[in-house]
């Protein structure tokens, strides 16, 4: 298994290099211009100079290699320097991948945005799984019961109604129609600057302050989390149900019953464990989406996470930012594909990787 993993990791290197080149090509072919958002009064010669100062006058291939140098060599070295204070080469004046619109290193921007995305989108994924697994299990165990029918109906809605609709619908109901002094009112804008702490403005620790901060954080996360959780749960619960149904009709379940085991043991130990094998891989394959951030949902609730960063980058033709972010998503997808494969091998003793 270890050998298999290492060999697969080795193969990811050429794959990722190819992906990075293709992303660069596509971005270069895109008809956008980093000076496009500047005032029209700026004369063309000046625009040309701005473009040259960004390095856009060099041929595409040269720019690609420069990005490779910055991303694959300078950034890791810089991490070593900032993280462990190990200085290799000229660590003070190293050229990092820099965003054109904000003039800040792209990696710093990503690290800045990551917590919001992980909190909100990650939480929605966890909530989605926690909702989906029991629904899938009960739906399969009581196939065609009213619970199963209701579960199928809700999943169908979760599948087919886009998040930009459910998100706006929730805002209309919980932020607009419900008066904002009501207990049910929820904020429609996610406040990133909110810090959960027990210290009040005078710097003293109070439990009540901590409690009100916590409950505010909970309330502002509730809507975006639920919108995405509905979508995730819809998918995962269908997988769970199908996989449970597959296993419930297997002979070993009858064996387990013939052993005189409790129905709970039969269901949770025998059937559920076997049914989780495909579901776990599906869940692992979905993790890169968390990092990608749900672009639309983040936009609706003004969560300034990675998805929002990507949208702003695309609008401003911020090629280094978009290139780096897209490439990191590709890395995550490749890595989590590998993780899903390895998990499958670990969970199912019948699978052997040689």
């Amino acid at each position, binding site marked *: 298994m270890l050998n298999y993993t290492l060999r697969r990791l080795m193969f990811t290197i050429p794959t990722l290099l190819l992906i990075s080149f293709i992303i660069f090509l596509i971005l270069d072919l895109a008809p956008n211009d980093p000076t496009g958002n500047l005032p029209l009064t700026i004369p063309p010669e000046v625009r040309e100079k701005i473009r040259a100062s960004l390095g856009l006058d060099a041929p595409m291939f040269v720019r690609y290699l420069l990005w490779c140098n910055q991303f694959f060599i300078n950034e890791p070295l810089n991490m070593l320097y900032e993280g462990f204070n190990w200085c290799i080469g000229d660590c003070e004046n190293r050229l990092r991948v820099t965003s054109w619109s904000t003039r800040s290193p792209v990696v710093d921007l990503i690290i800045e945005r990551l917590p919001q995305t992980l909190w909100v989108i990650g939480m929605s994924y966890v909530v989605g799984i926690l909702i989906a697994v029991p629904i899938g299990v009960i739906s399969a165990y009581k196939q065609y019961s009213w619970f199963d029918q209701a579960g199928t109906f809700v999943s169908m809605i979760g599948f087919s109604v886009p998040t930009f609709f459910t998100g706006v619908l929730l805002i209309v109901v919980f932020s607009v129609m419900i008066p904002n002094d009501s207990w049910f009112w929820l904020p429609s804008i996610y406040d990133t600057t909110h810090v959960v702490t027990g210290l009040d403005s005078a710097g003293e620790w109070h439990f009540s302050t901590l409690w009100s901060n916590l409950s505010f954080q909970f309330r502002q996360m509730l809507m975006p989390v639920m919108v995405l959780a509905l979508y995730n749960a819809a998918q995962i619960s269908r997988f769970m149900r199908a996989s449970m149904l597959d296993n419930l009709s297997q002979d*070993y379940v009858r*064996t387990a019953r013939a052993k*005189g085991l409790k129905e709970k043991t039969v269901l949770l130990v025998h059937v559920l464990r*076997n049914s989780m094998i495909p579901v776990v891989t599906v869940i692992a394959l979905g993790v890169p989406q968390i990092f990608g951030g749900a672009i639309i949902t983040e936009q609706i609730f003004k969560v300034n996470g990675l998805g929002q960063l990507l949208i702003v980058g695309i609008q401003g033709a911020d090629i280094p930012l978009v290139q780096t972010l897209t490439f990191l998503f590709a890395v995550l997808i490749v890595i989590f594909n590998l993780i899903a494969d390895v998990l499958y091998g670990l969970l199912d003793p019948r699978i052997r990787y040689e």
Partner: protein
Amino acid sequence: MFDDKKTPLLRVRNLKMHFPIYRGLMKKQVGAVKAVDGISFDIFEGETLGLVGESGCGKSTAGRCVLRLYEVTDGSIELDGQNIAELSGKELRAKRPEMQMIFQDPQASLNPRMTVGSIISEPLVEHRKMTKVERSARVDELMDAVGLARRYADRYPHEFSGGQRQRIGIARALALNPKFIVCDEPIAALDVSIQAQVVNLLEDLQEKYGLTYLFISHDLSMVRHLASRVAVMYLGKLVELGPSETLYTAAQHPYTQALLSAVPHPDPAKAGNINRIILEGDVPSPSNPPQGCNFCTRCPRAIDICHQDEPEWRQIGEDHFAACHLIE
């Protein structure tokens, strides 16, 4: 009727298993598949009752009903004088250690994610208060009994051959010292050479532990070898039941005769002389059995009454029962 000294371990009376068929928008019940339709038999302690019949005649369903792996529609199943058909969930679980089953497909009937050791010891965890050491000692003992090396206890079922897997299934069934075991075509999925090994193992275990078997099979020669009495089933009903030797030499029911005439003869020179009874047509659907005798549509000797009245199940010789109008 019966020898008074012998009391049956298992007494099945008028067992029925009907699976409802639902159709249409409102899922109305439009009929039922009568997989088992009123069968009665006894099994005595320490004997093997063979249950034979062609595919789809309901023999496996009957076996599963006897252990109440299905909720039976009607009838009684008394094991040691206790009616299994009426036990509640908890009482039934408590009764499970006494009755076990060996399944047909040794691959599918073992949980692929459990090691052999945990498959065999799981019933012990559930029903016996044993320490871990005692349990693993019992697992070793069982693996010895079925002829598996003890060091295989940590392996998974897929690492074994078909015959070895069936041995695991047998060890698992034996774990709780059952009195009565239903063998549901335990050899059908195995090679002929392995079949003999497994059958011999079953015989040895029967002798050693005093087991009682209900042996379900479509292999007539194997049943003749193994069973002391044989029951023949057709379309959810028993057509004939009798001591093995009587049944194989002097079958009374036309269906049994046809079935026995289909057994291949090992000597090709003699094989040509056998007078084969070829049955015409297909088995009727168990959801819509014919009027009168179930076998009347294919019986070569059917007379008028066969199409009207259902034949009675009655004794026709010593320990010999059949249901046919032609037998006087």
